[in-house]
Structure formats: C-alpha cells, structure tokens
C-alpha cells in the first residue's frame, strides 16, 4: 500500500505544485525519491508532530494541499488537538497519512499498534476517514483524498499486501466496493482485513454459505445505502476490522443498523477486544491471536447463522 501511495502522490505532485508532503522524520527508504524530485514540495519537520501538524495547517491556509506522513499513532494521536482545532476547524486541505494501521508494526510493541485511530478520527468534525483494502484501493484512495477539498485521514497498511481487485475498479469516497455477492450474509471489511474477508468467504462457500463481501474503504462518510441493502438483501451482517471494537467500523455500522426501521438483522463485530496486545508478534500472529484470522471469522459466522432465525 505504501508503494501505491507514493506512486499516486508522485503523479499528483508532478501535475500540481501545491501538493506538499511533510514527514515526521520517518519513511527511510521510501520518501527519498519524492524528496529528491520535488524539493520545494517536501519537508521533513523532524520528530515533532504537534508542530508538524500546525505547519501543515498553516501551509494549507496559504493555499497548499498538504499531506502529513508518519507511522502508527504519531501523525494522529500525538497531535490530536492540532488536528481538531487547526486542521478540522479551519477546514484546511490537510491529508493525514498513517502507515502501519492495526498490527502492521506488531512486533514493535503496543506503542506502534494503531488500533484506536479510526474511532478517534471518525469523531472529528469535517474529517473524511479512509482505510483502503489493497494496493489498488490505496492508490485510488490517495488520488481521491488529494482531489477532495478538506481534511482527510488515510490509514494504510505497510507493504506487500496482496492485490485483491482487478484493474479498473470503480473507487469513490463514501461508496463501498462489492467484491463478491451472496445471500446468506454480508462481510463488511475495512482496511487490510479485506484479504481475510475474502478468504473467509471462500471457506464459507465450501460449506454452502454464500457471502457478500464489501470493502468499506471509507468509514466517514459511511455508505449507509450499502449497509441498508446488505441488511435487506442478505441474512446477516459481520464487520471485520483490525481496530478496537469500540468506535470503528463495527460501531459505525451498528449505529446505522440500529436506526433502520423494520429491519432486524443478526449482526456481529469482529475487531480487537478491549485491552492492549502486550505480547510481541508479527501482524499475522497478532491478528490470529486476537480473533482476526480467517478461521475465527468463519467460526463467528457459523455461530451467528445458527442463532439467526433462518
């Protein structure tokens, strides 16, 4: 996703000199080509995210389109009030980009687990929140947030995620992408869990359970129509995210479902349980250890459908 992001930013920066990338002294080995090619559109602000974010808002108020870039929680939680007051309240053209959503930096420890960012960013006024599901979505999402006026948060994975879309996918902010259709349930996924959602759907298929899979790449504004359609047209809904169960995709979908009159659809949120994940481990290990593996998803679906009125 990181590579796809930089490809899109380089393209955009070559056309529009307003596009400015500010990094917080991170991105070794990936930001250099941008820095070299666009020195007037690049800034390393040092290890100082509060100032970095204020500088981004100040530059945006002077007419630039600014992307702030760092990893895990550094570009979001560390400078949250600058994002709220400076970026959002002034409705600046600042795009906050975090690499390493969820457990992407799992082995680096709890400080590097970005597992509450979606909930926090989603609650901010004016903020658009995007978590693409594969490199193709990441590239299209990057182009989309640059073109979208106003504050955006882009949560990326890291590197090496599988490509899940054929080329030519129709990407629009706020519009879920359906990767497969089914009738027994809908798996709604955000961010890098999309590959797990598809794996689980394949396994369920073998058992004769047909799944619709939606990539909810935009958490805000949320595609309420797609959620309502899933509630009407399929037998159950499951959300899947590499994020706390509180306030992220699951919470957002639950809010929508609770307010749709006349529809009561069996529903489960798969996400991280309350509490930190203090043990070291790869992304794959930590996902599995916290119930985010495809097998866990399949098991949750089986339990959910059993209790569902058929």
């Amino acid at each position: 996703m990181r590579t796809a992001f930089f490809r899109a930013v380089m393209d955009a920066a070559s056309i529009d000199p307003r596009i400015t990338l500010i990094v917080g002294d991170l991105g070794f080995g990936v930001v250099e080509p941008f820095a070299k090619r666009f020195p007037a559109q690049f800034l390393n602000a040092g290890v100082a995210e509060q100032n970095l974010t204020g500088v981004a808002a100040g530059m945006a108020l002077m007419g630039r389109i600014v992307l702030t870039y760092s990893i895990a929680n550094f570009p979001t939680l560390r400078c949250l009030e600058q994002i709220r007051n400076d970026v959002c309240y002034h409705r600046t053209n600042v795009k906050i980009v975090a690499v390493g959503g969820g457990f992407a930096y799992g082995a680096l420890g709890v400080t590097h687990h970005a597992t509450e960012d979606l909930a926090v960013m989603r609650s901010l006024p004016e903020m658009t929140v995007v978590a693409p599901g594969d490199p193709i979505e990441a590239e299209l999402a990057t182009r989309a947030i640059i073109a979208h006026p106003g504050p955006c948060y882009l949560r990326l994975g890291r590197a090496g995620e599988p490509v899940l879309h054929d080329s030519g996918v129709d990407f629009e902010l706020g519009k879920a992408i359906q990767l497969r259709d089914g009738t027994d349930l809908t798996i709604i996924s955000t961010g890098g869990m999309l590959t797990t959602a598809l794996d689980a759907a394949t396994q369920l298929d073998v058992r004769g359970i047909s799944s619709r899979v939606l990539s909810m790449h935009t958490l805000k504004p949320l595609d309420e129509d797609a959620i309502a359609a899933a509630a009407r047209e399929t037998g159950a809904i499951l959300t899947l995210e590499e994020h706390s169960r509180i306030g992220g995709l699951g919470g957002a979908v639950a809010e929508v479902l609770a307010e749709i009159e006349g529809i009561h659809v069996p529903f489960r949120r798969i996400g991280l349980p309350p509490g930190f994940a203090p043990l070291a481990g790869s992304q794959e290990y930590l996902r599995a250890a916290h119930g985010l593996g495809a097998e866990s998803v399949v098991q949750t679906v089986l339990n959910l459908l059993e209790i569902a009125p058929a």
Partner: protein
Amino acid sequence: MDDFNPSIDEVNKLSQQIRAQVLQMTHRAKSGHVGSSFSIADLLAVLYAKILRVRPDEPEWPDRDRFLLSKGHGAAALYATLADRGFFPGDWLNEFYADGTLLAGHVTHHGVPGVEVSTGSLGHGLPLGCGMALAAKRDGRPVRVFVVMSDGECDEGSNWESALFAPHHRLDNLTAIIDYNKIQSFGSVEEVLNLHPLAEKWRAFGWAVSEIDGHNFGQIVAALKNVPTQPNRPTCVIAHTVKGKGVSFMEGQLLWHYRSPDANELQAALRELETHR
C-alpha cells in the same frame, strides 16, 4: 492600510479605545480575561496602526500580513481592534459572548473578518505561523507573519518544537511577540513554571531576540518596523508588560485574569482610561 499612518498620539487613542471596549464587553458579557486583554492592548494598537499590511475592506487580500493571536483568551482586545480598524461593524462588540452570535470568548475565525485563525488552546499559533511563513517563503510571496503569545503559553511544548523549526528553516518573515506580563492562571510565572531566562532561551534556539517595554509605543514600533533585524533568522520580541495595564486597581492583579468588572468598577476604570488619552 496603505494610506493609514497615524501619529503615536493617535495610536495611544486607539489603545485606550481598545481598553474601553474591552471593559464594556467584559462587563456586559460578565466574562474574564480583562487583564490579559489590557497587557496586549498597546501591542495590538501599534501592530494594526503602524506595522501590519492588511486591508480592512479586503480582509482576504492574498498577500496581506498574517496576524495570529495565539493567546486566544485575549479575544476581546483583538475584536475591539478589528472593529476599530473597520474589519466589521463596531456594534458586533455589543454581542461578545451572546447566544447565537459570532464573537466567542476565545479568538474565532468563523464568520469574523480579519481573524486568521481560531485559538484558545495554547501553543497552536506558532506552529501555524511557521507553516504560513514557510509557504510564503517557498512561494516567493511578500507575506509576513506575526504571532502574539502569552508567557504562560510558553509552558506548552509545541512552541518549543516551533522554536527549533523556524530558525532551522530561516523563517525571517516570522515574528513571535511574547506578552511577558509575568502572571499566568494560577499565580506568577516564576512560581508556576519559571521561564527565566526567557530571552536567552529563544536566543539559544537561534532567534533574533529583543526585549522591550510592551507599553512604550516608541519601543514597540522600533522593534517591529524593521523585521527581520537579522537575515535568515525569525524575530522574537519579548514585550515586558503589566497585566491589567491602564487601570490602576487592575494592574498586576491575578484577580483580573478572571473577574468581570461590575457597574462601579466599569465606571471607575473608564474614568481612569480617560485621563490617559
């Protein structure tokens, strides 16, 4: 602004007018921060009368100087200044703090001509100012940026991130003015979290530092009219001020960080201001 070049006497009149308005506004609103507004009244009067290149009839003029009141609790003084300079009608001041109106108790940009950024949480103005100054430099625009901060605000770590940043990026179009009135929310700066030696700190970070009497018009003009004073360096003007300056029973009193003048205090204070005109 281009044809507006008032005498020092007129600047003094403006600063007393700002104070009188602040008294009326805070009395009506039953709001505080009179002392914080008074300590910057003379700075604001000089900035808006003699320093800033701004156009009240064209507040969004792209190449205007940017003024950021980072100590957002001094809002009453800024609103009074902007109204006096014609950015918006003076009768807006009557609605300071009022339900459903634009002039909130901390500096608010929303719908208020002349206000660049909203502040109120401390330590936000200098990073924003750094971004504006850097963008102006990179785009080759003549914009200068002025940020007024409080002394208590210097407790915030974000300012020191900016203090490192601005000299590193040679932002000589940026000027930070510190309203050093020596009193913060809970007591004296010395007691709460000592800033001394403040000038040496900014100098060590690479700023061109001057110290002035923040109530002496000649010194304020001299410190600000020729910035940058050193090429490639941002300017830091430490303005030694008196909280509540201009009304004897408010001067140097922590109480007037919070208290709103009652009817008797309002009249007494207004009478005293008259004698300074």
